[in-house]
């Protein structure tokens, strides 16, 4: 049976104009299916982050079209895109993780409080679950700025999961993690895609991590050169 397409790009192109005009993405078209765990690889500067920002709906300045589910995202208004991100997309950024003044627990809770689907008590309970899933429940009440980079990264992944988004996007989610924690994240992602049907798109440098995923997309000089 054919799987449902959850995300699709059609001929995406992206230019940068500073310092010189430069095509960072060129004619990128691919499909991502429901409950797939995809990794995106490529040399540094090949355009992985740039593509991920477009997929995340934060970057709206590109050529081509983006669809999430059946809905065309290209051309939508910023406030509507914010609502889509809140509900449907969990995002883990490359270097920027948490709000430093809040506890880890609050950091995880905030997107859910914003969504407002559950009561604060329920959200707190769910946040503890997510932190537990990533093995950092014991840090829940610490202020975020007091945690190590690796711990912050895991809290950030927990936060990306809190609203049960259809798609989770990660930019180098294991960049800061030791092998033990890397395998925790890997397991978590497999579990999410298998058990909860969530889709994961992760940029990575880590070949082992990529091999463990369902499918690899490779970028070079802004072009899609290979998908398995």
């Amino acid at each position, binding site marked *: 049976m054919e799987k449902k397409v959850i995300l699709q790009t059609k001929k995406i192109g992206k230019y940068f104009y500073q310092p010189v005009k430069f095509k960072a993405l060129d004619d990128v078209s691919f499909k991502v299916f429901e409950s797939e765990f995809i990794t995106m690889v490529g040399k540094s500067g090949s355009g992985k982050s740039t593509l991920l920002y477009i997929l995340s709906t934060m970057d709206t300045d590109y050529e081509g079209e983006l669809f999430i589910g059946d809905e065309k995202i290209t051309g939508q208004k*910023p406030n509507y895109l*914010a609502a889509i991100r809140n509900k449907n997309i969990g995002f883990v950024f490359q270097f*920027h993780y948490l709000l430093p003044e809040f506890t880890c627990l609050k950091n995880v809770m*905030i997107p859910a409080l914003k969504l407002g689907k559950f009561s604060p008590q329920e959200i707190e309970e769910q946040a503890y679950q997510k932190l537990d899933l990533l093995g950092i429940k014991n840090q829940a009440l610490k202020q975020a700025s007091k945690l190590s980079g690796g711990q912050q990264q895991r809290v950030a992944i927990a936060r990306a999961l809190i609203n049960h988004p259809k798609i989770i996007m990660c930019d180098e989610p294991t960049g800061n993690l030791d092998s033990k924690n890397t395998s925790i994240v890997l397991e978590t992602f497999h579990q999410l895609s298998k058990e909860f049907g969530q889709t994961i798109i992760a940029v990575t440098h880590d070949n082992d991590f990529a091999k463990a995923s369902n499918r690899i997309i490779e970028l070079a000089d802004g072009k899609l050169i290979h998908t398995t």
Partner: protein
Amino acid sequence: MKLNVNSEIALTHLLTRKRQTMIAAMGVTVGIGIFIFMISLVVGFNNYSDEALFKAEPHLRIYQDDTLSRPLIKQIKPDYTTVIINPKIANLSNTLVNPEKIIADLKKQDDIVTVTPQVSVNIFYNNGISQINGEASGVNILEANDMFNIESTMLAGDVRNLLSTSNGILIGVGIAEKLNIQLHDNINITSSIGVVKMMKVEGIFKTSNSNIDLTKSYINLAISQQLMKKSSSYLTDILVNIEDPNDAPKFSKQLQNSTIYKVEDWQAANEQSMSNKKTRQVMFGSISLAILLVAAFGIYNIINMTIKEKLNDIAILKATGFSGKDVINIFLKESLIMGIIGTSFGLLMAAGLIKFVSGIYIGGDREYFPIGYESPIFFIGAILGVLITLGAGYIPAIGAAKIDPIEIFRK
């Protein structure tokens, strides 16, 4: 208490930087405190000077104005040359015709508090060879007292004695001193047409205006009419007090339409002091507004700083689904909280300053500094404080809402 997530973020920002929050709020405190205090000073002083004015003048005065003679041959069209013209003051008498009807009509109106007739007579006060010229007001003493609160200015004697003593007179303290006259002494007065009367001093008053004290006296209406050799229907002025003295110009316009006599409101009669009043208002108003703006700049500054330091947070919030509106909301809440804290203490500060200044002894008939708690000023101050801080927060908040998270993440 259940807070929504925007409020929670705003509060956390403020609480993790208590010192800056307090400093910015203190700026608002000082701004609002000084603003309310200064405006109260002006209002207090204006009320005081109005009060002093109303001890000598009515809100409205109706009298026969001098009219000029008309050209003998009427000008037919504006550009026709008038043949014979010889303008002279042409009214035969300055009396008001049928004053009882005017008074009765006025008394029927709603917002009119007191209506009283008056005859002004130019007279000389004589004691032996000393002589002062001045003006006697022939009045119905009880009504005049209602209007001018003559009682409150009395140094000696009683205004009511004028009722029992028909030739009684109340004189200014300046006249008494210059002519060396005591209470119950006799005093000779001579009118401009030469009628002489022997009067009995039944009271001595002291206003805040030494010129009035040196010229003015109150006598019974009948005596003043006799001084002018006129009948009991002779009146020179009708004096009117209304509920709110500020409405006087409106009233005078309205009354002017229904009478041939001149109606003058106290504002028109005192143009000079009115323009002084306006100058005071503009001066103090702009100084205190400037102070408020400085306070607003403090708020602007701290919100701006917070935003600069929190670019990363704003990017994360936007990435996780907070809209530009939410970002504005968060920073507006921050400035609102600082504004409310600052304004509340500002109200307290103003109250303290007013209390302090109102205890300063300045002598004169008021004794203490003329300032009071005016609730409308406090109200305006509170509204202004909150509005200005909101405005000061809004400008940087719009900037924050426009931040592009990708630009932050790429760094």
